[in-house]
């Protein structure tokens, strides 16, 4: 028997909500964010430590040699690159692994069965990825303070690029997670596409180090605008004009949002 705690005479009723199911959206967002934070050692501490290791290694490999990169002292160049890399990678992992896990375990029905529209799902997942990425990015930035002890030059731009970068890779991860049928597929996407695309896009070196042909390709990579934009936010120096970068990143996110929305709406690999 279902216990009815509502006042006598009222009985159980279907919850009414307007155009947007705010509770559903908030629940979806929180559910996956808390799952990420529950394993903070893997999702927050490990990427921060990995970045610290990179900073140390470059420091030791350089020794006394002074190196200028993209108009900045090498450390000032490297730290924003590492923070941006962590933001982008975490954005991808948060949605991609969640989606593959839920699909393989059959838990995805909890999401599909809930009264959440495809648009709400896409927004919920993208915001979750952005928040998770922002938290890990903050932790990484704090850990790297000894290498770049300065107040962010443009905090607003920094947060704008971090949030949009996290959401961008979050939606890439979402599409990848929907496509993947097993772990092999999604780790393949990460190892062979996402990580190389990020590593070669101005995390560790400015693009003028690349041969001309490859450089032209690298400049088409939207992730490069995120990394360059975050570098501008932290140091005030960038290769591209930050407002151009902001427009590119926003445009890419709109397109990605439409793709993910379409995938959810059509039930691609989710519904029979």
């Amino acid at each position, binding site marked *: 028997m279902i216990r009815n705690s509502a006042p006598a005479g009222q009985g159980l009723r279907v919850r009414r909500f307007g155009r947007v199911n705010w509770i559903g959206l908030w629940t979806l967002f929180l559910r996956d964010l808390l799952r990420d934070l529950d394993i903070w050692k893997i999702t927050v501490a490990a990427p921060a430590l990995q970045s610290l290791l990179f900073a140390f290694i470059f420091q030791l490999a350089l020794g006394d040699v002074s190196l200028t990169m993209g108009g900045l002292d090498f450390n000032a160049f490297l730290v924003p690159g590492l923070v941006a890399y962590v933001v982008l990678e975490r954005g991808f992992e948060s949605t991609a692994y969640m989606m593959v896990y839920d699909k393989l375990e059959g838990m995805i029905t909890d999401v599909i069965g809930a009264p959440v529209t495809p648009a709400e799902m896409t927004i919920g997942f993208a915001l979750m990825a952005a928040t998770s990425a922002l938290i890990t990015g903050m932790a990484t930035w704090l850990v790297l303070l000894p290498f770049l002890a300065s107040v962010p030059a443009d905090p607003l731009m920094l947060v704008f690029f971090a949030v949009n970068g996290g959401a961008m890779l979050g939606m890439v991860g979402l599409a990848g997670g929907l496509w993947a049928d097993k772990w*092999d597929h999604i780790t393949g996407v990460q190892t062979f596409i996402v990580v190389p695309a990020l590593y070669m896009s101005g995390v560790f070196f400015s693009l003028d180090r690349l041969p001309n042909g490859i450089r032209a390709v690298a400049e088409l990579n939207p992730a490069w605008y995120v990394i360059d934009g975050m570098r501008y936010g932290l140091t005030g120096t960038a290769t591209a004009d930050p407002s151009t970068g902001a427009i590119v990143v926003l445009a890419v996110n709109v397109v990605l949002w439409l793709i993910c929305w379409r995938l959810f709406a059509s039930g691609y690999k989710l519904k029979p």
Partner: protein
Amino acid sequence: MMTDYPTPRRIGAVNWLGFWTLYLKEVRRFLNVFTQTVAAPVVTTLLFLAVFTLALGRAVEVVNGVPFAQFLAPGLVMMAMVQNAFANTSSSLVISKVQGNIVDVLMPPLSPAELTAGFALGGTTRGLIVGVVTVIGMSVFVDFSIQKPFFALFHAFAASLMLALLGMLGGIWSEKFDHIAAVTNFVITPLAFLSGTFYSITRLPEAFQTIAHFNPFFYMIDGFRYGFTGVSDTVPMLGVAVMAAVDVVLLLTAWRLFSIGYKLKP
């Protein structure tokens, strides 16, 4: 004498068939997902080579009289080998324990020594395969020359074996994936990164140089690099002795854990 009914197989001092079966199981386990276990580390290592030479190549031209790329490449190969040797045995044991199919390994007539050898050589094989493929991949970009083949081969084998054994100890100790992930992230990766893969330890402050001489990871990377470049940060034969001694101690430890059934048998 032939009988009509099946009789138990007679096993001599060593159950060769059982050992071989366990070894093959360990090797086929990773070859089955070779994109994750072989191709992925090779691509990641090549990326590291590209990133470091592009970022630092103009500023750091030579290390210890060796061009930077030729100095870096053996270190990266060693790093890939040890990380994968460790991953093979640790993941195999943890997955088996969590899923419960560890009994398939504990029930058969395999002695602790045979178990140790089967798992350890499985992990060593993965390390060596990753190493060979990485060297082949890198030789497209880096001028490899092998000055002292004995040292290169010895350290490739001894280091893979050492990390395979460490992976076994970690896998036996871990009760869930979190535990072994923590060991990988917070112990193995920092040791592999900071023990001279990317720089000569003469760059370190005096105190850290002394500490490095107590770190087996330093000897394996330095010794392996010596095999390629013929330049070493320490006495090469000392590295051989240290690695051999560490491997023997770890073999005995792993054998002992299997004998007493630590965290494996009730």
